[in-house]
């Protein structure tokens, strides 16, 4: 292969989507990952494509675009990754929770989201097995779902079919630059030259920035997911407690969890997800599994008799301000970051790819990318927690 126009580091969902967008924009792209496709956090994600959990903000604008972009990607590459526009239902059982949820829904509606309040009877119709004590919820028809590993793999397949290349099993150990501008990179096995390098290494993006002599404050936030035995069609939407929204926005290091329950195309039910900041801690914490199970059963009592088959954990990449980092490095020209999407990287991947591709190719962006700029950390004291 002649020297690529751009090299993407990372074959997670963000790297894959970026590679596809760049390829579609006419660039010759090389993707490099130290492991197989989606072997990072993408392989541990749940595949929710959510607009419901975001307050009006630049992130919501990104999410709204991304949600539609997923269906465009689906059409572009001919699917194969279980994309389903099943809708989400957010519920609350406390007076305060209901009030907050109503307020959030009103704000979201003003921002263009379809958010429909539903009462007890309507809820039972949407979700026949939901606990009878759930009497209020908001239906978000735009929430969608996919199988993230398949998504990344199918997208990489399209990239390869369209002339891109994918090198697996090579660890990037240096970003090479001259006079503050990228000229390529070096892996543990070989050397590649390219004026553009996209850092899509998720939770490990800070390490790549460091290799380039720059700095990016991305840290891991651990999460567990429970997977049940196949259980037939019990749950129609993705259903979660409003507390989840509060958790997503929280910076608290302690364990937080609030079950997000959903069925999948294969028949298993996914129950996610806990959030805690314990570094890359790997052990199986059964107390977290129990807490998720209790919360899920409290939403859907039928789950009591359904078996747990697997539990797995992943490490969400997060920045101190909980916003993704999308844009050119503040110090190194030609090094672009697309990382730090925390618990929404799957949902936000295709819009992220669009944003970074437009910036790289000098085209008009669909939104102002400034809030996601890596420059926002320059000079900031981001030691955080």
């Amino acid at each position, binding site marked *: 292969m002649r020297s690529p126009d751009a090299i993407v580091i990372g074959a997670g969902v963000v790297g894959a989507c970026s590679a596809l967008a760049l390829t579609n924009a006419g660039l010759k792209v090389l993707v490099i990952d130290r492991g197989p496709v989606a072997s990072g956090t993408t392989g541990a994600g749940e595949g929710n494509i959510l607009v419901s959990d975001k307050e009006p903000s630049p992130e919501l604008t990104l999410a709204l675009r991304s949600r539609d972009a997923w269906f465009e990607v689906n059409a572009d590459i001919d699917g194969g990754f279980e994309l389903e526009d099943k809708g989400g239902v957010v519920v609350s059982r406390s007076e305060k929770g209901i009030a907050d949820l109503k307020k959030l829904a009103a704000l979201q509606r003003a921002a263009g989201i379809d958010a429909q309040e539903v009462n007890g009877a309507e809820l039972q119709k949407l979700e026949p097995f939901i606990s009878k004590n759930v009497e209020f919820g908001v239906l978000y028809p735009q929430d969608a779902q996919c199988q993230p590993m398949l998504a990344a793999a199918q997208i990489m397949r399209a990239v390869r079919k369209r002339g891109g290349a994918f090198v697996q099993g090579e660890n990037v150990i240096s970003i090479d630059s001259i006079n503050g501008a990228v000229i390529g990179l070096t892996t543990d096995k070989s050397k590649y030259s390219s004026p553009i390098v996209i850092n899509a290494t998720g939770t490990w993006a800070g390490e790549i920035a460091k290799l380039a002599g720059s700095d990016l404050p991305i840290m891991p936030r651990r999460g567990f997911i429970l997977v049940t035995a196949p259980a037939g069609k019990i749950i129609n939407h993705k259903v979660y407690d409003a507390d989840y929204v509060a958790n997503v926005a929280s910076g608290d290091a302690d364990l937080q969890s609030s079950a997000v329950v959903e069925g999948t195309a294969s028949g298993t039910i996914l129950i996610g997800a806990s959030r805690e900041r314990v570094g890359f801690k790997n052990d199986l914490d059964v107390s977290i599994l129990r807490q998720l199970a209790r919360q899920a059963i409290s939403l859907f009592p039928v789950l009591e008799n359904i078996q*747990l088959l697997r539990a797995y954990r992943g490490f969400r990449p997060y920045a101190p301000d909980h916003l993704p980092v999308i844009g050119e490095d503040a110090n190194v020209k030609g090094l672009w970051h697309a990382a730090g999407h925390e618990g929404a990287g799957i949902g936000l991947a295709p819009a992220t790819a669009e944003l970074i591709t437009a910036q790289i190719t000098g085209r008009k962006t669909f939104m102002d990318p400034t809030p996601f700029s890596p420059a926002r950390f320059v000079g900031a004291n981001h030691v955080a927690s």
Partner: protein
Amino acid sequence: MHNVVIVGGGPAGLSAALSAAAAGAPVLLLDSNPRLGGQYWRQPDESFGDQGSQHFDLETGLLLINAVKARKEIEVWSGAQIWSATHKDGVNTLRVLVNGKEKIINTGNLILCTGAYDRTLPFPGWDIPGVMTPGGVQSLIKGHGVLAGKKVVVAGSGPFLLPVAAGVVKAGGSVVELLEANKSRRWITSLFVVLENLSKIKEGFYYIKTISEAKVRARFGYAVVAAHAGVNGELDSVDVAKINRNFKIKKVRNVKCDVAAIGWGFTPDTTLAGTLGCKQIVAKDGAVVVSADSNQQSSVAGVFVAGEITGIGGSELSMAEGVIAGLSAAKFVGCKVEVLKAHRARRAKKQRFATALINSYPIKDGWKSWVHQETIICRCEEVKLKDLHYAIDELGATDSRTAKLLTRCGMGMCQGRICGRSVVDLVADQLNVSPTDTDRISAVNRPIITPISLGQLAAGE
């Protein structure tokens, strides 16, 4: 207070319990089966009476079982299934379901004797009701007094086919074919191994006698390569092939039968040991086993391992290892006891026999040519060979773990216990590489040892 906790009540676990107790250590013995004995000495409810005729050597088993029951230092929990286990700072936490209720055991001293299950290979029709494992056919007879069907084909490879065929005959069934895929009877030629293991040879002759009395003749160099269902959806016949040294098909004929018992040796169940962090290694035959030192200690201090999980070797090697594990664990908790030279010598002798046997029954690569694109590989998730090939050729999977995650092959209810080992081989084959140890070990890792209902999970502390 229990000083030593033992998981598994088969030959290894029973022997370990007795030797630890005799050395002065109180023992808690856990087993998921309703009755002690493990796979080899599986028995039905007591009311079935004497089961001697279904066993070569039930006396030894009963001796051990009764001794365990009689010793008051040994507490037995039958019907106790460990669903999760974790290790932290020298303490092993076992989460056990006993009659649907969860109990938690924290211990620093553990002996794992979780045994093995039949190794199977996929072939067209292997999911038809009536196709079974030899162990399955035998466990129905031994444990329930039930013969799975009248006309039985016993096939595959390994010495275990003999007791299964003999068991079918004794239970009143007819063995229409007894097929050993390998031609070699090399192990007989090692006179030394034979002489030092006469009990095993006697056992072999006992089965052969039973079988020949029923006019069953074993055929070497044959295998069942396909199964066919009748109109009722149940097994109607199998294709029996003459195969070459490498298991490639030479000539096929069809044989009617009710049951086909097909097995290819055993796969150790190292799941529990794996969740505790015990080092697993790949044996010469590709099986993942738990690594043990000369005292049967695993890589985790205080966790001892014995029996089939350290390598397939049969009941006598399991017992020899169990005795050493029991003594070592007792010593670990402070009992004044030593593993004797004689113990090690006995284990070495049984190990030589086991090695000779394993070498005589290799599973050759040619089996993969029996599998077609449409053949189910993962029975649980109904994943076909062509799905695996798509994941490799189109989606770019370059290892079996990725191929599995992209196809759900091995992600169903059995958690990859049945197909996992074959998937590693089939994926490597398609990629034209040899499976790595990482591939093999990753295929037997499962954080949840056995499914548990969310209600039970939620109810625990």
